[in-house]
């Protein structure tokens, strides 16, 4: 496997994934959701993972934090974080690893907040568990945290349903950076939000990243957002990475036909309007080969046999 290209920023990657394979085991057959995926994220780097829904990107996110439950299971490969083997952590080590080292912003903020606890209590939980602060101290810090994402600290006493969608997502982001983790996973953080709020949230993340210096694994199917935010990115299809390179390289010169189709499926944020093109109906890729370097730092899966445009 090939992908150990130089990471952005530092030579020691924060996160290093090698040949990760995740299977969903069914009653009669199992499905491989993530198939021999390798990538690494450097210190302070924003790494994007793109692909259509169901391609396995969220599964990777959950695998990194070891949140997968039956019937999903990691059946091969390794996940290393700051030199530590995540897959062999004991339960107490894993519990501390979660949120202190890697935090995650989930897809739907409404569903990822406990509906019967105040925002404040849900932040306090983090501090009392991980930092051992008193409740009073935790509340003070929680208020600071909300201010950091520009939410009125009075909202500490609010329940999730009393906040707007954007506010909820910002509260979740605040929670995610509470312990200053070195990696932040963003799993489609803006999917459920309207465009204006989307932009606010992304600006917020950029600002926090600038301030706190964490690395980001950014997962989305929205290519224009991804290109805008990421340093490097990978495109996934059917559980495999088909192309990975610097975001601007993929933006300007996508190599794999699937990447090209994805790039064509979203309007550019700026510039003239162009007709959108997607993948033609019926085109499928199978037996995606391992990545090969086509130019420095740009890896592409060699062009598969097209089984397209049938029957």
């Amino acid at each position: 496997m090939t992908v150990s290209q130089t990471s952005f920023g530092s030579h020691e990657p924060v996160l290093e994934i090698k040949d990760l394979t995740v299977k969903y085991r069914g009653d009669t057959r199992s499905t491989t959701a993530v198939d021999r995926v390798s990538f690494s994220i450097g210190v302070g780097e924003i790494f994007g993972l793109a692909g259509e829904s169901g391609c396995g990107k969220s599964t990777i996110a959950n695998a990194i934090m070891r949140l997968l439950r039956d019937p999903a299971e990691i059946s091969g490969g390794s996940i290393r974080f700051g030199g530590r083997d995540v897959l062999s952590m004991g339960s107490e080590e894993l519990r501390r690893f979660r949120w202190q080292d890697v935090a995650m912003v989930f897809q739907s903020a409404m569903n990822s907040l406990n509906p019967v606890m105040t925002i404040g209590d849900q932040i306090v939980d983090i501090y009392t568990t991980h930092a051992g602060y008193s409740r009073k101290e935790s509340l003070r810090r929680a208020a600071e945290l909300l201010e950091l994402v520009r939410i009125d600290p009075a909202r500490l006493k609010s329940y999730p349903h009393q906040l707007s969608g954007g506010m909820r997502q910002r509260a979740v982001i605040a929670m995610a950076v509470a312990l200053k983790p070195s990696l932040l996973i963003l799993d489609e953080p803006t999917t459920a939000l309207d465009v204006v709020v989307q932009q606010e949230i992304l600006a917020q993340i950029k600002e926090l990243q600038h301030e706190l210096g964490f690395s980001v694994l950014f997962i989305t199917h929205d290519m224009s957002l991804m290109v805008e935010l990421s340093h490097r990115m990978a495109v996934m299809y059917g559980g495999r990475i088909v192309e990975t390179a610097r975001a601007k390289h993929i933006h300007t010169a996508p190599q794999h036909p699937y990447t090209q189709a994805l790039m064509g499926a979203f309007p550019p944020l700026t510039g003239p309007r162009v007709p959108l093109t997607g993948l033609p109906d019926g085109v499928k890729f199978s037996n995606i080969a391992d990545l090969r370097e086509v130019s420095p730092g740009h890896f592409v899966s060699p062009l598969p046999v097209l089984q397209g445009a049938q029957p």
Partner: protein
Amino acid sequence: MTSSIATTASTVSGETLAGSRPGNPVGLMPDGGGALPPQGSVRQPNRTLLHGLLTNKKAMAGTAILLTFIALALFAPLLFPDNPSKITGMASQEPDAEFWLGTTAKGQDVLALTIHGARSSLLVGLTVGFASTFIGILVGLASAYFGKFIDEALSLTTNVFLLLPGLPLLVILAAFLPPGLGTVILVLVVTGWAGSARVLRSQALSIRSKDFVAAAVVTGERPMRIMFREILPNMASIVMGTLLACIIYGIGAQAGLEFLGLGDVSTVSWGNNLYWAGNEGALLTGSWWVFVPSGLCIALVAFSLSLINYAVDEVTNPRLRKIARRKIQTTKPVAAGKRGAA
């Protein structure tokens, strides 16, 4: 009610299921069932339900117990041709070679009473079960299909009936009506239909909001056809669960009613056997063989029905069977579907 908790239990789980269980259980549809035409989505779950039940140990054990009792009830007149109430032996005899289950304080054969008792108990239980479920289906479908005022009125009635405490209501109804089997059945249906109506309504409502029902409405299908051909078949598992719970209720509540002396004390049934056992002081004289068999039979029948009910839940709600599947909805079906289609 005597067996109420079984009813409550399944009502509780039924409620949760109605919320979490989609019209077509995702786990049972191989590849992306969303776009299937109504016909496909109508038939498939029912066939898989049957198949699932046939391969489920709990369901098979439950069915075996139930069939045994039905067979005993059917063949009771052949096994014990005499009137079971007839006094055939000494009073309060312990079980022996002649009377396998001993005799009552009057000297009746307990085994004969128990086997003949199955007839009335099963008859009443099944009748009450089917009638209550039928009413529940009608109310549930009407509520879901017509909505608005009709739904409001029906829900209010259902909820009021659910709230009125069952046993006291049974007692005053049974006390004012002329005693007899018909009264027992009528009274049990009156007190038992509301639970099933509530569960079936919530399920019918969720199916009513599905696109294929909207399509049927738009294409001008008659209301009756929509209710019974489009909505009802998709509720098969819930209807089945409700039916089982109602039968359990019927058998248990009949026994409770009869135990209070509000049934027709001249018929032979498990509840009446227990009534007489209590009246003749079987407990205080230590004649355990008089009251144990009938109670055990009620419990076994109710247990067998619970087993089947439990199996229906397991088959139709993969979550209860497998350890919680979570991310699977967002990742697996599409990936699998795409590849399968390629």
